[in-house]
């Protein structure tokens, strides 16, 4: 049983939390940006002049990955892996930090994909009515709200966990 205890020690659990936040949100963003990029290249074959506008729309689902990285980094800073001496964590502390990584990890994944799809659909607006970029940006931005809320939840958890 000793290997289980050493495997699931506090530091490893916290690391898993950081990894999960970065992994989930990053994967969501990667998929979302990819979906939007596929649609963008379709628009560009007709009119290469719309590169800037489509790039802006494509960038929108990219923020989840950054939010995930923020939480991941914050966890790493808190346990001293980055910029300091590593701290000894209890299993409970480690588990708490793991849980703190969950909101942005899960919501980042799902919202990244959903936002990518919204962005891809809005590429049609850019194709036909490029002057409506502002409106086209709002639909994907509605999805992002939930990633922002998840980031907030993860951050507040991270802040509240005493090491």
């Amino acid at each position, binding site marked *: 049983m000793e290997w289980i205890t050493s495997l699931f020690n506090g530091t490893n659990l916290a690391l898993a939390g950081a990894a999960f936040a970065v992994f989930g949100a990053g994967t969501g963003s990667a998929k979302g940006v990819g979906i939007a990029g596929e649609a963008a290249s379709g628009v560009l074959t007709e009119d290469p002049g719309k590169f800037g506008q489509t790039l*802006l729309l494509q*960038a*929108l689902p*990219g*923020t989840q990955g*950054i*939010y995930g*990285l*923020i939480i991941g*980094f*914050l966890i790493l*800073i808190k346990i001293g892996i*980055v*910029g300091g001496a590593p701290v000894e964590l209890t299993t409970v502390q480690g588990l708490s930090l793991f849980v703190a990584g969950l909101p942005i990890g899960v919501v980042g994944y799902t919202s990244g994909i959903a936002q990518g799809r919204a962005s891809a659909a809005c590429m049609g607006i850019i194709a036909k009515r490029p002057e409506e970029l*502002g*409106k086209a*940006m*709002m639909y994907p*931005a*509605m999805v*992002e*709200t939930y990633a*922002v*809320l998840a*980031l*907030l939840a993860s*951050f*507040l958890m991270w*802040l509240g966990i005493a090491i």
Partner: protein
Amino acid sequence: MSIVKMSRLRIIAPQNIRRSLLSELARIGCVEIDHSADILADPQWSAVLHRLDEVGDSAKKLTTLTSALEALSKYAPIKTSFLSPRRQITEQAFKDPHQVEEAMAAAEQLNTHMRQIASNYAEEGRLAARKAALVPWKSMDIPLGTEYGTQFKVLFGVCPAAIPVESILETASALEGCSLTLVSSDREQHYLLLVAHLGILDEALDQLKARGFSLVTFKDVQGTAADNIAQLDRQLADLDRQRGQLIGQVQGMASQKASLEQTLDVLTIESHREDVLNGLMATAKTVYLEGWLPSDSEAAVAALLEKQGCAYEFSAPTDDEEPPVLLHDPVLMQPYGMVSDLYALPTYRSNLDPVPFMAPFFFIFFGLMMADVGYGILISLGGYYILKKARPQGGLRDMAMMAVQCGISTIFWGVMFGSYFGNIVYAFSSNMLGHPVTINPVLFDPMTNPIPLFIISIVFGVIQLFTGMGLNAYGMIRRGDVLGAVYDIGFWYLLLGGFIVCIINVKLGLAISAAGALGILLMAGRSHKSIIRRLLSGLGSLYGSTSYLSDVLSYSRLLALSLATAVIAQVMNTMATLGGKSVIGWIFFFLIFIIGHLFNLAINLLGTFVHTSRLQYIEFFGKFFESGGRRFAPLYNKTKFVEVIKEGK
């Protein structure tokens, strides 16, 4: 600070001044002409009027100019940054007819060169195809297309590469008086020379064709293939040289670009004016124009019309007319009109300009989400630089002016929260210098103490929502529905305001809320006669209070995005100072510092703009905004490439 009051304008003008009248109206730029086609439905009008058929050649000239400019950008591209300002010229130089003529001649010449280049390419393609057909026969030293006496015939043929050439050669060698030689082979075909006695020719061809052989003929070709190829090569070289000269001539006209662009502007205006004229109603001697103008420019327009000798009248819009919408705001707030334009224009009848109410919130929220002194300085300077360097117009100008302002708000909140490129002062001094220095925030640091910022966010949210509801009530009162404003807005103020009072006094707050809730329950369904349906409808309205909760909580994004900026900045600083106090460490520091913070700035500018706008659109405008107005589109001299300086101003 409002939606500009509009007047209807009707003009009857002599036919012969129609063009100069339109250009004078465009010069003062405050009259919109609409196409008054529907008056033709009135038999009294249609008895005297017909639709004006203005024939002009500006559209055709525009095509010429556009293709000439395309030619220049293809063969003589001049690299211009989007920040280079438009060339400034005087009104007189802009309209100089001589200049237009010159530019049109240059454009014609450019297009002629381009046609010559195109036919040059076509000729090259034709020659290249002929050459390709001859190349396989190059090694053969007998002339093509020559008769060799009366007994023999010399023929050329091919067979597909997939057929083993030996079998065909054997077939031929088995025949008496027939010789087949393999000249060359490529990936697709074998090229064969057939020499046959006339007596056996038909039979030989039958047998060979059965094996996949087919004849090829050379039309109008004399001499050997090699001779012909050499001649074609000379012709191709000639063509290439001619094309080089033509392209050189096109490139030599690169200096004409500015003049062409100026003329493009002149003709675009003219063609637009012809479009307007085309829809007008006219009698034999007069034209009839209808349109809109801001009521306060009636005097200026009247003076102009007097001078031109037109009959005119101004009238207030009638109830079934929908005047176009023009917003007039103080200079500082005017760029924020771009944000509300992205959403929609308010209706003329609502008489409620959202810009002055939205602008302060946008200003504050933008700064709150970025909240960094360093970034604020960069944003302001960036906006200022664009304004000075490019002298932009339209959307870019609004953006730049907004950037200057929002940068200041960003600096303010950065000082409040002690953020200067994140925590660069502390990170740099402790890791690179060894003496930690900290700049204390004026208020608090949201990174360690986020709850106060959460509260600030929610308070701003409540203020904005209450403002939105207030504007809605104002609209209802203006329409005369005072009781509706009390029932639909007043009771909600009580209900929501009560919760705020709870912070000070729970009992009093709850009592206020309960009064509000009771009012909503009783009055929200006042359109229903049945008491039960009325109460049910009231209950439904009360359930809508959850939407106010989600609206308020939506403002927590102010905190979240503020944190996102600060945390990424801090992460960048941590990475930048990892190198420590060595030479490499310093180089590393500057690299990561510059790249990292530019990245963070770009990402957060996008996020901040989108989310600040969203709070205005969904949470704020959703409360009161009546969208659906049509933009006021006056005749004015819109130029893309040059900036015309008005004289006498």
